[in-house]
Each structure stands twice: as structure tokens, then as C-alpha cells.
């Protein structure tokens, strides 16, 4: 057995991981989620705003991180729209603007048909310049976005009338996969307007970098697919779809927790087996050396 494990072809490990991910997906396994304080704070940040508040959503990610971040992006949009907030979409990543359009098409248009572009939501689009865009927008939003996505002038969009800079926003939501993202929003937005509120949805690998900012600079935080699943539970509980059932796209986070569980368990088994092989062979090597 030890010899088999010692010479284990990596393709068996790949097969095991493939099955660990595929089986729960095919069987549509879902497990109950216990909701943590960060997801509750995130929910409260959007829920506590009065109807019609201005919420800026910055989609700072691309398809590589879609698996983790798209479920929370969907839930943010559905939650904010269900509360009747005005939605301002922007992107610091080039492919972020595509993600905005996909989310609007998947969530806003079919499930919130009363939302009209220009009146209830606006796509500001992608702007090159990384944190420079935030810096300019904190002093002058029209200067950062002289035109919005689709070519309209800033002043022609009804819901942008009277907005001079980012301090007009009641909440900023950053869905972030790296640089530029949540950290830059903290540095250039929250630092410029210390009273302003920022919520972050982030990937697991960079979540630990944002813990120092929570809960003062970042008032709510969702990390990885677990955070998305917890937030979905809260949103689905209060704002189900038209038929009283959760919107299928708002179950994605919870659905992805199934493969995550089996993949994590496999990882633990592999680490234990690897160490078993290591200690057994080290013991026999030591005995062989003494002889």
C-alpha cells in the first residue's frame, strides 16, 4: 500500500479531484449554511439604506475569478434593486464592464423590469487609470466619466444630474479580485471621505489582506464562495423571486459550496496520506541507514 502511494501517478490525483468536484455538481448537492457576522453586516449595509439611495457598484474582476465573485455580484444587484436603490455601475478592470453587462442582463432586466437605464441604473463603464480613476472621481465624477457606456454625455443621464463626486454615493460596493480593487477603494475613497461606507466582496486568497480594514473602513465583507453563499441565504430569505422561490442564479453560491466541501475533504485526505508515506518511508530509511 505504502509503495503504491509512494509511486502514485499524479493522474490518479487529478481524477480524484475531478470526481470530487463533478459528483456534487451532477447530484446538485446543497448543504445548510450558517450565516456569519460579516455576511450579516454586508446585508445590513444595503438593507439599512433608505429606498432610492445611491449605490455605486464597482466590478473589479474578470472571468478568471467569476466562479467566486459572480454569485455575490448577482446577489448585490438583486438586493440593492429589491430595496429600490439607484445603481451606478463602474469597472476598474477592462473585462469588468462586460461582467456588469452580463449581470444587468441576468438579474436586473428579467427580475426588476421596472428598472430603466439612465433613471434607475447607469453603466459608467471601464476607465483606464487604476486607482487614478478613484482619485479623480472623488473630486469630480464628470471629469472621470465625461461620457458613460453607450456614448451619452455625463450631463445627459438623468440620474447623474447633480452628482459632482463620489461623496454623493450612500454606499460603494467593490467586487474585487485584486489590483485595482477593494484596497484602492479603501485608500483613495474611504481615506478621502472618512465617513463614507464601503462594502467588499472579495476572493478567498486576498480576503485576509482586508481583515485589518473591517469593520471600520469596510463595513461589510464577503470572502470567497462561502461569503457569497451566506449572503445569498439572507437575500433569498427576504427577497425571493416573483414566484416566491429563490431566483436560480441566487442559489449559485450555495450550489458551489457542495464541490468545495468534497474538494476540501479530498485535500485533507491527500495531505494525511502524503504525510503517512513520508513518515513510514523516513522511518524505514533511517533503519536502513543504521544497518
Amino acid at each position, binding site marked *: 500500500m505504502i509503495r503504491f502511494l509512494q509511486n502514485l501517478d499524479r493522474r490518479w490525483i487529478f481524477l480524484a479531484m475531478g470526481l470530487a468536484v463533478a459528483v456534487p455538481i451532477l447530484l446538485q448537492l446543497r*448543504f445548510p449554511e450558517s450565516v456569519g457576522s460579516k455576511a450579516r453586516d454586508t446585508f445590513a449595509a444595503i438593507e439599512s439604506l433608505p429606498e432610492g439611495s445611491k449605490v455605486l457598484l464597482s466590478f473589479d474582476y*474578470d472571468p478568471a475569478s467569476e466562479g467566486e465573485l459572480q454569485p455575490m455580484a448577482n446577489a448585490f444587484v438583486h438586493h440593492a434593486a429589491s430595496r429600490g436603490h439607484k445603481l451606478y455601475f463602474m469597472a476598474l478592470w477592462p473585462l469588468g464592464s462586460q461582467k456588469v453587462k452580463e449581470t444587468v442582463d441576468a438579474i436586473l432586466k428579467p427580475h426588476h423590469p421596472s428598472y430603466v437605464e439612465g433613471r434607475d441604473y447607469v453603466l459608467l463603464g471601464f476607465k483606464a487609470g487604476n486607482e487614478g480613476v478613484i482619485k479623480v472621481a472623488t473630486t469630480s465624477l464628470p471629469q472621470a466619466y465625461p461620457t458613460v457606456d453607450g456614448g451619452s454625455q455625463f450631463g445627459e443621464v438623468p440620474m447623474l444630474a447633480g452628482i459632482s463626486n463620489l461623496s454623493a454615493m450612500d454606499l460603494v460596493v467593490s467586487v474585487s479580485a485584486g489590483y485595482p480593487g477593494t484596497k484602492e477603494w479603501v485608500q483613495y475613497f474611504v481615506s478621502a471621505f472618512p465617513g463614507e461606507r464601503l462594502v467588499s466582496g472579495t476572493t478567498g486568497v486576498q480576503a485576509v489582506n482586508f481583515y485589518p480594514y473591517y469593520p471600520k473602513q469596510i463595513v461589510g465583507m464577503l470572502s470567497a464562495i462561502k461569503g457569497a453563499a451566506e449572503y445569498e441565504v439572507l437575500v433569498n430569505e427576504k427577497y425571493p423571486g416573483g414566484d416566491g422561490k429563490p431566483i436560480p442564479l441566487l442559489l449559485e453560491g450555495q450550489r458551489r459550496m457542495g464541490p468545495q466541501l468534497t474538494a476540501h*475533504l479530498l485535500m485533507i485526505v491527500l495531505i494525511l496520506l502524503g*504525510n503517512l508515506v513520508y513518515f513510514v518511508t523516513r522511518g524505514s530509511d533511517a533503519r536502513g541507514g543504521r544497518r
Partner: protein
Amino acid sequence: MKRSIPILIASLSGMVLVLAFFSPRTESWSEAVVDWFNVLAAIAFILGAGSLLKVQLVKISSRSPGWAYAAITLAAFLFTLLVGLFKVGTVPSDKFPTHVWTGDYEAPQATFGWIYLYVMSPLTATMFAMLAFYVASAAFRAFRAKNLAAILLLSAAFLVLLGRTAAAGFLTGWFPEPLEALKLDNLVDTMLVYVGTPGSRAIVIGIALGVAATSLRVLLGLERPYLGGGGGNG
């Protein structure tokens, strides 16, 4: 002169941005600098594309190992550039239905949008998803409890791996109220808040001090990595 002018521009731009952060009167100056940055970044895109073309063409013409990949890169680059620039397949906008070029090149009906949706998006997602397989292989071959530090690292890894899934509920969800703090998800939170966050804070503060020191050297022209050659005092 060839070095002095870039150093002067870099120092002035940096100083303006620092000043603008502290004085509201100079905020508009920083906006001008950021505008210039955007203009230069646009030119850098052209330079980058030129460099990509040059490198790939050299590889192809010299038939160096992997030249076929260079040919694929080049073909994909040129095809995407052209269909984007000429808005191939776009549907005219509602405002100007007779003008084809008024269409959105990112829309799924446009060839550029189609490439994003059905080539770029699945490819990048696949690359990221493949990490799971390599991490699994590494878990089996590399994560060894060789010493105390490795044991601590592995223990933390086990806690997070279990605590961030439904396993936490199955294994420790039934713990009574007095043992609430020992539930796996609470243990993970405790570890992140009381161990991870202070460590992260220390690193962030250290990095910030380093960045401040390096930035000061750049502003004073002592460090000039933007001129190439690795910077330094030379």
C-alpha cells in the same frame, strides 16, 4: 538631458500628487496629471502591441522552439484587433439604425463580443479552475509535517479547509452553548481575527513604510526604475 528631463517630469508629477492629497486647492492639478497618465498609458498600449508583434515575429522567422504558439498568438491578436477596430458583426444602435458602426462592439452579436463570451471567458475560467488539480497534487507531495512551523501551518490549513465548508456544521454544529467558541467556523474566525489580522497589519505597515521610503527616493530622483536598467544610484 536624456535622463534629466524624465527625472524632472517624474519628480514634478509625484510632488503634485502628494501636494494634491493634502491641499484641496491643488486637487485639479492631480486630475491633470492623471489625465496625462491616461494619455501616456494609451500610447504604452501601442508600444506594448508593437513589442508583442516584434517578439512573436522573431520567434516565427527563426523557427525557435514553440514558434507555432507564437504564430497562434499573433493570429489571435491580429484577428481580435481587427474585428474590434472594424466592429465586425455589430448591430447598429437604436439611435442610428442605418449606420453599422454605431453598434456596440462588446455586444454578444458582434464578433469581438462573441470572442470574449465564448473564447476569452471560458479559457480564463478554465485556467483558474485547473489550479485545483495542481494544488491537490502539491497537497499530496509537498505539505509535510517536518517541523513545528510546518505542523502549525498544516493545522491552520485543516481548520480553514473544514471551517469554510458545511463540514464545520456537521462536525461541531452540535456543540452546546458553553463550547460555542470551539465550533470550527468560530475557531477559523478567531484564528483570522487574532492571528491572521495582526500579522497582516504588521506586514501592511511594513510595506507602507517601505513604499514611502522608495517613493521618496523616486521623487528625489535617487531611484529611477522607469528609466530601465534596474534603477539605483547610478
